[in-house]
């Protein structure tokens, strides 16, 4: 015969276990929702001490293969590499919107942007004015889930290059890494091994003509 106090202790402990399990499941759900909200890539949250300024984003359009400039008001940090990263995060936030013309899956995409002095830049020049190489370190979670195709991948690459060029004119070249490593292509097509010149990439495809190009 089990004593009464042992039966009471058993049921109290069993009840405590059930309560703890329910609490754990509830807490897990709340953390999951919080992380999902953080990954939602909604517009960049302005730092308290940053000034809002107008920046140019080179926005891609899958429907007609164009890249067109658009102005947005964004608060950006002053440090150039942080500024470059914030610009790209803002650019990708546009692509994560439901009505985007170049839809990309929401979530973090850029790990870091490193700015290095270009080998051709004068040794005495400072980083703010010298020709710089921007090394854009993308996340593999972004590259692995990027839509596959020459057109769609090229638009993403050209959009990144054009946005950096428009807002950070000291950048003369752009290179790409994925998780800190070299990778042949973004999603099977666009070349990521090449050093791209930082140029104006706004582009409107032209129709074929009866007179061949001269």
């Amino acid at each position: 015969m089990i004593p009464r106090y042992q039966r009471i202790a058993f049921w109290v402990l069993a009840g405590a276990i059930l309560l703890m399990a329910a609490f754990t499941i509830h807490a897990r759900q709340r953390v999951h929702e919080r992380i999902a909200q953080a990954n939602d890539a909604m517009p960049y949250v302005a730092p308290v001490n940053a000034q809002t300024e107008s920046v140019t984003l080179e926005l891609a359009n899958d429907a007609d293969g164009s890249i067109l400039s658009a102005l947005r008001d964004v608060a950006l940090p002053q440090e150039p590499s942080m500024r470059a990263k914030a610009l790209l995060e803002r650019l990708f936030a546009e692509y994560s919107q439901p009505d985007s013309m170049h839809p990309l899956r929401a979530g973090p995409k850029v790990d870091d942007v490193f700015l290095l002095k270009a080998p051709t830049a004068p040794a005495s020049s400072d980083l703010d004015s010298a020709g710089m190489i921007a090394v854009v370190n993308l996340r593999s979670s972004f590259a692995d889930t990027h839509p596959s195709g020459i057109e769609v991948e090229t638009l993403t690459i050209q959009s990144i290059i054009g946005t950096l060029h428009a807002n950070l004119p000291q950048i003369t070249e752009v290179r790409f890494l994925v998780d800190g490593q070299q990778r042949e292509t973004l999603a099977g097509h666009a070349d990521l091994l090449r050093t791209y010149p930082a140029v104006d990439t706004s582009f409107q495809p032209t129709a074929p003509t009866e007179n061949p190009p001269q």
Partner: protein
Amino acid sequence: MNLSGSQTVRRLVLLLIAAWTCPAIGQSGLPYMNRNLVVLDPAHGGQDKGADLNGEPEKDVTLDLATDLRAALTARGFTVVSTREADLPASAPLLTNEQRAGTANHLRPAACLVIHATMQGNGVHLFTSALAAPVTAYDPSTPIPWEDAQSIYLLQSQRLVNSAGLALVHAKMPVLISRANLRPLDNMTCPAIALEVAPLTQEGKKTAVTDSGYIQHVADLLAGAIQSWRDAELPRPAPAGGVTP
């Protein structure tokens, strides 16, 4: 200087061998191109399946298009070489982009086509290399960097893509012409374009990119475009003996 008969013959033979082995300069100032040869490069293959096109791997669609294009070009009198004729076994090493470009570059073809397929967009996407055009004219004594090999053929490639685009537009096919940095396109020393076939939406009717009739139609249009481009850019050389009255 007097030369004996045997010396003269020897010099003539050497001259002929030199003329045969040295790359001839074509009408456009570029190295000799075999006007009847086209190289096709169906992208991906083996372990590299490419994009997922509604359950069918991109490597199979590119191979189907290359097969149809080969038949259409052969019917028009072209010799066609493909960088892969069938799917590579899964255990086989991947066909690298350098190997694909190397195959094309060794053969000196009149045109090279890099073939891809996608689920994004509508109709056919045509690309030339996004490399910058060279600032100086082609000089045979100056080495061409591998990374930028296509740059000296950009004008011919743009004319080829224009011709292909026109053929598709005339057939009321949605076409998008753009530029891209893509391997092995950037490394090819021939007039080269990349072709990306996307699903077709026309008059409310949707055609999958895997549809064999659609692929066949695109192949026929492109083969005709390549032939008319070739006839305009690389006309048949006049017979050596001149026109017989």
